């Protein structure tokens, strides 16, 4: 026992001061996550600020955001393995890990979010398949796609720990890792298909089927969410790798990789911008008026229209920074571009959930405010902190950035 404590102490003291602060904060958040997570699981959702009038809260925002941002993994994989953009090779491990964690924590948040966690598996055993092949409930589709894609990411992730210097020495594992890597394009293709499907479900399904809610109903969601995931997700992958590089003070990914992916991201964000504009336009001119309400009224209230505006501003800025070479190649603008790209997409999810739930259903009711409680914050931030810790651990102990190791090997 004492040994373990000593080991942890030494390990902890071996880091720089900033990292130590970060570690303490992250571990504290994980602690809160565990404490309040138990409270939520065993004593119910009464401790959240969600209510019958505001049934979807912070965790759903987290789910949607993570799924969208985790969508960067399939985009990167798609371009690398199908289009053979070999420049993306150095970042693929990182993206797969992030994608895997995004999906893992989406499922974790979902388990917290449902009222009966012990019935969580009913989605698999009693799925709401409608009369036809297509599932009737989009949530069924989301659950299945999410799970399958999660499994794919898991398989995609296997070669990463196998390349660890200890495991790599075992011949069998080495060959498994090697051939899995070779066959990864199958996984990438399947992942792309599934990801397309469920990103679309999350858009078209989650919100588009809510035909009775003018704030949500818009068939355009389907076409809008996929580019959002591709653009915002890739930005997010870049951001993570970039921050990792800054923290480790090393070049973890070659600059060409960054720029290649940033260009992909920029182009995707253009598509996102266009589809988003069409979405807002159709909603404002067709679907909201069809319910005898006005778009500006629906986007009133506490959260309101400014969220949509910010969403657009962020996307436009990201597009400018990522697509124009002179901006992209300046580090400041590059960083701003990828941050704003990820933030713009996250903001769009926020608008959908945070604002969408607050819209009154009856003309005599006011807009509803929502203040997440400490339990919600803890579970949400604690989940994110766990992700960061896993990422940090992987960056330290696993060959997350092959480029880095290549350099190290060369130096030796």
């Amino acid at each position, binding site marked *: 026992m004492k040994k373990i404590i000593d080991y942890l102490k030494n390990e902890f003291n071996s880091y720089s001061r900033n990292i130590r602060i970060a570690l303490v904060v992250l571990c504290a958040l994980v602690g809160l996550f565990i404490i309040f997570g138990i409270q939520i699981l065993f004593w119910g959702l009464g401790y959240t600020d969600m209510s019958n009038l505001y049934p979807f809260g912070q965790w759903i925002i987290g789910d949607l955001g993570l799924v969208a941002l985790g969508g960067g993994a399939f985009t990167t994989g798609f371009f690398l393995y199908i289009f053979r953009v070999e420049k993306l090779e150095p970042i693929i491990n990182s993206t797969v890990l992030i994608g895997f964690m995004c999906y893992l924590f989406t499922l974790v948040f979902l388990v917290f979010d449902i009222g*009966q966690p*012990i*019935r969580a598996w*009913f989605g698999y*055993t009693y799925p709401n398949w409608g009369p036809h092949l297509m599932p009737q409930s989009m949530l069924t589709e989301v659950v299945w796609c999410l799970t399958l894609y999660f499994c794919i990411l898991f398989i995609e992730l296997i070669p990463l720990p196998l390349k660890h210097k200890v495991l790599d020495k075992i011949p069998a594992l080495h060959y498994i890792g090697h051939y899995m890597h070779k066959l990864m394009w199958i996984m990438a293709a399947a992942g792309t298909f599934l990801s397309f499907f469920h990103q679309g479900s999350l858009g078209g399904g989650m919100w588009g089927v809510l035909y009775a809610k003018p704030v949500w109903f818009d068939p355009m969601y389907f076409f809008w969410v996929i580019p959002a995931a591709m653009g915002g997700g890739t930005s997010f992958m870049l951001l993570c790798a970039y921050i990792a590089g800054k923290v480790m003070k090393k070049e973890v990914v070659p600059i060409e990789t960054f720029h290649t992916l940033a260009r992909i991201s920029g182009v995707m964000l253009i598509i996102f911008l266009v589809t988003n504009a069409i979405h807002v336009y159709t909603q404002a001119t067709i679907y909201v008026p069809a319910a005898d309400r006005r778009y500006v009224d629906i986007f009133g209230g506490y959260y309101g229209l400014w969220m949509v505006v910010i969403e657009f501003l962020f996307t436009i800025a990201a597009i400018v920074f990522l697509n124009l070479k002179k901006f992209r190649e300046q580090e400041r603008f590059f960083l701003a571009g990828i941050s704003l790209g990820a933030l713009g997409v996250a903001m769009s999810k926020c608008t959908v959930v945070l604002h969408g739930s607050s819209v009154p259903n009856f003309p005599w009711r006011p807009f509803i405010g929502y203040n997440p409680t400490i339990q919600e914050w803890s579970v949400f931030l604690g989940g994110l902190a766990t992700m960061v810790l896993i990422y940090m651990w992987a960056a330290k102990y696993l060959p997350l950035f092959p480029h880095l190791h290549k350099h190290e090997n060369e130096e030796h």
Partner: protein
Amino acid sequence: MKKIDRKDFLTLTGGAVVGGLTGTVFSGAPFDALQWLVEWTQDQHRPPVGREHFIRTVCDQCRDRCELSIRMSDDRAVMVQTSNTACPLGQNALQLLYHSERIQQPLKRDGRKGSGRWTPVSWDQALTDIAAKVREKAQANKRHLIAGISREYNLSSALLDRLVAALGSRNSYYEATLESLTTAALGGVPQYDFENTDYILSFGARILEGWGQPNSILKAFKGWKERGTRFVMAETNMSRTASLADEWVPVKPGTELFLALGIAYVLVREKGRNSAGTGFAGWVTYINDFTPEQVAGITGVSAEKIREIADAFSRAARPVAVCGRGIRGISSSAAEITAVYALNSLVNTRAASLSQFAGLGNPPMSQEASQSYDANEAKRGLDEFIKDGNFELVFINGANPLHRSVYGENLKAKLENAFVVSVMPLVNDTALYSDYILPSLSFLETRTSAGDAVTTPYGQSRPAGQALLDLAAKIDEVRGAFPWGGFAELVGNAPAMRPAGNFAFNNEALKSQITLLKKLISEDRNYPLSLIPCEHPLVGDGDGLAFPYVLKNIDNYTYSLGKLWVLINRQTADAEGVSEGERIDIESSRGEIGSVRAHLTDTVAPGVVAIPLGFGQRANTKYAEDKGVNPKEIMSAEIDPLTGCADWWLTRVKID
């Protein structure tokens, strides 16, 4: 045989594991395990099922006596089937019957008064102790210091009256209800024939929201449209009753009386109508001041409108003018009750009449008792008794004057120094200051005129009347005054209402009151706003809050998330700088109540703050306790010269 090496061991283990798995799979265990998991995760509680049958009974909570059918599951009552009769009072019966805080057996105070600590005692001990205390007071010549306070007129309150009288005290009081106020002001309770009337003129009485006898009114209301009955409602704020009326006459706060006087002026002076009431000639002199033009200035109702109403009222075949503002929390001045009822007599309508409670008659008294009875005088009403009266022993029969009277604080002080006996099924604010609480029953547990009780009594509870009879039997002196075998015997042949004689105008008392009220409604620089109660129909003036299903149905602008809401007119709120949802304090000359939330709405009149009644109770089960504030604490406490109760309807306030 070769020694088993590591590889062989692995093979053996592998065989065992694979074999185990195969065996498990082929035994069907995974599928049954899944089945079990499905059943376990889907498990939820179902109440025990029993034989279903129905028992007919009668709701005895008001004089309507609605017939109910109680759905039973074995011996549990599970649903009150009202089949389109009755009202929430009857529907709530099960919640009282099965209330988790019902008192099971007599409770003796343990510790300080108001601390809510009790020791359960036996009936015999409780009654013996109380009887000893009563005898002690009688022997110490303190018979006039014995008092009884009842909630409303019913059999048990008649028994309490009789008990108090037989002991030689006149101190029998009733809380301010429609019945007690009108009896004091008019000598009887007005009976309105809502079924056959063709013109209803209500002065603030919210007759469609549970006022009076809800069932018969609602039954009649169904036919008003077809029969062309016209319903005119004079009220300050927009209520559901006013909204359902054919015409709403918005009056300035607290000026219903003057509107009635103005209409009376038109009827007497312009249409030459006369009333047969005694003292009418004297009363008529007051209304000289109230020409429609003057009344228009006071009430905000135009003179033409007043003439129009008077005209329609006088031309209707069977019109009624209804007095008694509010729903359950009734507060009207005697002057107003008289003035409104005078309208009925002025048009000589057949749709309104006065009736009285017959009571149980005067008891035979011992000599000392009769001396004491003759020597002392009763106060005119409960509030006056609380304020000015003295008592050393008081019986509380289902009442809650501590919460409902504006003199609650005075009563609290007096109760602390007196011997208090409460008879009630749940501990309420007043019972908190009792020395003894005797548990009484809901109507489902007692014999009613429809037949036997639906269920067996809870714990050792007894009907309130039975408890009083049992107590009387322990006091030698009054035993003779209660010749009945038991309460059940009385239920069948209880005296009913009887018609009251002609009503009289108590001119002397009314004159000063009218002047006073005129002053009250005039502008006050210090307290520029008017505080007016607005009851939630289910909560009434407080009784309803003990029932969880009532709490479930309180709307978000009455009480929500631990905060009481008051309604303020938009312009007024603007002028006062109050915004929607803001927490405000309300202050009157009597004090301040704090931390209520303001909802801005135009359903209340400019210059008015409307506050719900019934909240701010200290006890009355955990469902009612500590919810909101009790506005009675700051409401005006001017005692009415006839009814002896405070007229708290209108209070001048300011807000912070």
